[in-house]
């Protein structure tokens, strides 16, 4: 009797469950399996080919005493913080301006979003030419008569990160703007009317009413932008190749070069495990707060 009235929960929505098996397998085998494999082999002395000769934390000790790794981490931190803040501020400002019911909104939106359609390699190459002192901005300004004008960020170790930042922001801001614009459009018109009745200035409405209401949009944008920052690699390769010297090295490049160029898989795995750990330290508390909280309500 019980079987007839209450079918087994396992077979409920059977079609949907069967359809999601490939994705579940991919997630478990490729993502989780690959991650565990990488972490395990980071404790070995694998060279060109993986081998199971465990050496404890030796790879990690070497990693954290390598000047290049420390430079990479520092660069990523500087780039990451600045890129995050700038793309959010500029993205939100552009979205707020577009939200003023201006004419040709579609045109502007397209223009701002177009850079995002280009890959980082193309972006990097284009900006490399623009910033090149012999062909780009410096050359143009000098040929206009300002002979002493100097603007060569990619060739100056002190400011090369800001050169990368220009290209990164140019490419990524359009996406943040679109997400923000969608968030702004999601705000009920009545909220604005109420604010206007109460005589609250527009900027205050944005800052204290609209932005707190857009929290989910901000979190989505944060995850997308932050993951893009952590895996920063192609932009650097296209623009500077890590130079001048090692002034624009980033962790992802360290991982790649030790795995394939230096033929030292163990070292590359240790570095990529450290990148994973960093991301996990940021993501796990956030995920706990975000999703763990809701379930209890």
């Amino acid at each position, binding site marked *: 009797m019980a079987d007839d009235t209450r079918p087994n929960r396992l077979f409920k929505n059977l079609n949907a469950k069967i359809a999601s098996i490939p994705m579940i397998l991919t997630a478990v085998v490729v993502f989780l399996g690959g991650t565990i494999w990488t972490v395990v082999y980071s404790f070995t002395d694998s060279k*060109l*080919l993986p081998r199971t000769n465990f050496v404890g934390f030796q790879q990690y000790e070497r990693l954290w005493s390598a000047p290049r790794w420390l430079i990479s981490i520092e660069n990523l931190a500087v780039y990451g913080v600045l890129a995050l803040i700038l793309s959010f501020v500029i993205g939100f400002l552009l979205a707020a301006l577009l939200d003023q019911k201006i004419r040709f909104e579609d045109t502007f939106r397209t223009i701002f979003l177009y850079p995002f359609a280009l890959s980082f390699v193309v972006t990097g190459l284009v900006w490399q030419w623009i910033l090149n002192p*012999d062909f780009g901005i410096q050359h143009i300004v000098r040929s206009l008569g300002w002979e002493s004008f100097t603007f060569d960020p990619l060739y100056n170790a002190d400011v090369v990160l800001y050169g990368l930042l220009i290209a990164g922001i140019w490419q990524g801001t359009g996406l943040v703007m679109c997400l923000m614009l969608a968030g702004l459009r999601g705000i009920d018109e009545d909220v604005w009317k109420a604010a206007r009745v109460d005589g609250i200035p527009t900027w205050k409405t944005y800052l204290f009413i609209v932005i707190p209401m857009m929290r989910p949009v901000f979190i989505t944008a944060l995850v997308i932008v932050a993951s893009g920052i952590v895996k920063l690699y192609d932009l650097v390769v296209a623009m500077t190749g890590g130079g001048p*010297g*090692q002034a624009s090295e980033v962790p992802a490049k360290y991982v790649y070069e030790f795995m*394939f*160029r230096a*033929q030292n898989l163990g070292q590359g795995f240790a570095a990529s495990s450290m990148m994973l750990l960093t991301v996990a330290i940021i993501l796990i508390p956030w995920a706990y707060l975000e999703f763990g909280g809701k379930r209890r309500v």
Partner: protein
Amino acid sequence: MKSLKLVAGLLASAALPSAASATDLEVTHWWTSGGEAAAVAEFAKAFDATGNKWVDGAIAGSGDTARPIMISRITGGDPMAATQFNHGLQARELVEAGLFRDLTDVATKENWAGLVNPPTLLENCTLDGKIYCVPVNIHSWQWLWLSNAAFEKAGVAVPANWNEFVAAAPALEAAGITPLAMGKQPWQQAGAFNVLMVGVGGPELFLKVYRDKDAEFAAGPEVAQVFKAADDARKMAAGANVQNWNEATAMVISDTAGGQIMGDWAQGEFQVAGETAGTDYTCLPGLGLHEVISTGGDAFYFPVLQDAEQSAAQEVLASVMMSPETQVAFNLKKGSLPVRGDVDLATANDCMQKGLKILADGGVIQSSDELIDPDSTTQINDLFAQFFSDMSITPEDAQKRFAELIAAAQ
């Protein structure tokens, strides 16, 4: 992720032609500059003449870009028919894993052991008594290339050695000429340092550091001299804003730079530009101080293939590469020295004759590629990339870190 797609795209585009016909052999290499491309065309011509077809799989960029692609194709089960590596330790693990075919039969039949000079070249291809690669040329790093016109413009005589070159640097700078052209890539910077080590310090010093891995010696006063010379070099190269080695060579060819420390592959560029050794440019082996050259170079490895026809064609290719005619044609274009002691290179120019004479006199040492593994090479490259671009790192600091890397090297 995007870079992965790029690599995948490259792989796909490189893999397509190999499916065309059974005796098509796809050969991957990283010879893409003007002189290099002309040289590799000689191989293709000679191999096509045997009725087979050379499918060119050139990978642009330097060896540092190409090797990961080659290795991932071989380990990923999509091997090419033949591939270039520098002879030495770069491909050792792949050989140990049984991914390359044994060429001992061809080698015994054609008596390579008796022909290849110096014999260390073939020893580097040998594992457990079996031969796994074909050395095709001898490249040496230890050359200083000087622009005669640049020195004329500065009003000083063309230097006969490194010390005179350093002394002439202020005059060159006064004439608006960058004394030393150097591309800002780590391998070039570390390479120049190793040349200074042989040229200024001498071959015994070089071997004591890289072969014996004597860390105490590497921290000592003799090696400090070399770091002092490297400090001079980075000051002389401060005005050179180029990346690739051939761009730096172009500075010497166009007389905007006084000289360049670069291997003998730079010779090909001078040749393509129509310059004559002795009148337009001067070459100083061993920086004019210690006339010794290292015998690194390129070798071809043949991955194990399932197809019998292709495997047979691989043997033909190996024997073509070693044949006297191809050796002469290839090496004349490449600016490198042949691996056979029995070929006639009367048509070789001034600089190559110098190299041949040193080779015949036995003034050879092993290259750093043969003595230390790619892992240590990368770390040493990183150190010199920093040293050459950041003037705040003192030679003393750099030497201390260098000695630590030598202590950890295998």
